[in-house]
């Protein structure tokens, strides 16, 4: 790859925006997963939730 | 959704009265029977030889909900005429007589009082014959005379072998009724 080629800025910008958007998407999804896991654990600790694995039979 | 452990039977020629505090699920149960809601579990069975047991009551049901399903810009007669032709023919004159609406026939529905609107909504019961009536607080807004008209209509329906399931706070002068009380039931379901 030739970094001195014309329009190189557009190529770099394309890869940068792809990286930023996909990274932000992944971070958002991770953050959501973490907060959901934390809340579920909190509810479990309070004993508010019947675990689907304990009392009930799975098919 | 709101109740568990319900078990009841509604018999031909008898009325089943639903009682219970607000929010007990009387309306939800009526909607469930009508097929306007999905049960989270449990079954509803129809014991009628001409119908499959899992038949949806849907078209065999008159459902009187909180709303009267009337168009304010149509006259009383036009409202009834619409439902009559929608259901493929009905007795408009008879329906107006049954709920004492004949004198109001040409009135625009928006000029009716709340009680008169309720009567117009109830007149649908006499418009087309359907075996099952589901009435959600049918007496709301009715004066004593109109309540008597409604009771007459219900008695005639029961005498003809029909079924009524009604939620009501008022004891209507209708014979042969069973009571399903949500208050005692809630404890059992607890």
């Amino acid at each position, binding site marked *: 790859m030739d970094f001195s080629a014309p329009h190189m800025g557009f190529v770099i910008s394309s890869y940068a925006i792809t990286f930023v958007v996909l990274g932000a998407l992944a971070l958002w999804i991770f953050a959501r997963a973490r907060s959901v896991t934390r809340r579920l654990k909190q509810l479990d600790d309070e004993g508010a939730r019947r675990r689907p694995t304990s009392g009930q039979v799975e098919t | 959704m709101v109740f568990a452990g319900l078990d009841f039977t509604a018999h031909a020629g008898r009325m089943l009265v639903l009682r219970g505090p607000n929010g007990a699920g009387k309306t939800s149960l009526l*909607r469930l029977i*009508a*097929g*306007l*809601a*999905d049960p989270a579990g449990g079954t509803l069975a129809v014991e009628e030889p001409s119908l499959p047991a899992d038949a*949806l009551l*849907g*078209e065999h*049901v*008159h*459902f009187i*909900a*909180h*709303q*009267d*399903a*009337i*168009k304010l*810009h*149509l006259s009383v007669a*036009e409202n009834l005429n*619409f*439902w009559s*032709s*929608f*259901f*493929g*023919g009905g007795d408009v004159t008879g329906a107006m007589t049954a709920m004492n609406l004949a004198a109001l026939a040409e009135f625009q529905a928006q000029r009716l009082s709340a009680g008169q609107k309720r009567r117009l909504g109830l007149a*649908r019961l006499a418009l087309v014959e359907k075996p099952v009536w589901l009435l959600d607080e049918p007496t709301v807004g009715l004066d004593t005379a109109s309540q008597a008209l409604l009771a007459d209509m219900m008695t005639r329906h029961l005498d003809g072998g029909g079924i009524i399931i009604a939620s009501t706070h008022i004891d209507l002068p209708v014979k042969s009724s069973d009571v399903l009380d949500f208050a005692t039931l809630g404890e059992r379901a607890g």
Partner: protein
Amino acid sequence: MYWILPRLANGPVEMMPAFKSVVARDFTLAIRQGGSIGTAIGFFLTVIVLLPLGLGPDQQLLQRIAPGALWIALLLSVLLSADRLYQTDHDDGSLEIMALSSTPLEVVVLAKASVHWLTSGLPLAIAAPVFGFLLNLDTALIVPLGIAMVTGSVALSLLASLGAAITVGLRQGGLLVSLLVLPLYVPVMIFGVLASSGAQSGIDNSATALIILVAIVLAALVVTPFASAAALRSYMR
């Protein structure tokens, strides 16, 4: 599953009275409540007036954009007039009573969409070529534009009624309807404009475009009643 599929217990013969009764009732209501046709045409005219004000009074430019501008005005008017198509029937309980009958809700949907077309799409499609004079519309295009609009507005009404059904239980439906329905309007508008623009760069594709427009209308006739009825049923339970 049954909430998506209509109950097909009865033949089409028994559905006609119900269809006719809904058409007659809604038509009476539209006439009696008044304003609905007038408002739609008034809105249409407003859009037409705003265009030259925004673009400048260049007669040639206006002539060039006239068919497209009229189509945009048409689809916005149709869309906005359909916004509350099912609202009163939903709020006053009529829709539930209609659902509790042997008539499939799809028939009710078709009836209501037909009345909407009769009271907004059709009068607008007839009026649009006349209003075209305000945009210096080529007189040779009046007839093809009218034909394309009368045809295309059927699809516009059906799709708008689908948007109205999808948002019937929501408090602020208006903007959401636009977001949902405008992408569906893209093909109708493209072929509508092509069918009403006559020859472009020497090639006249308007006949082909009109045929495709008819095909889109037929597709909308098949899909939207089922989709609208399924949406209405979901809001009832």
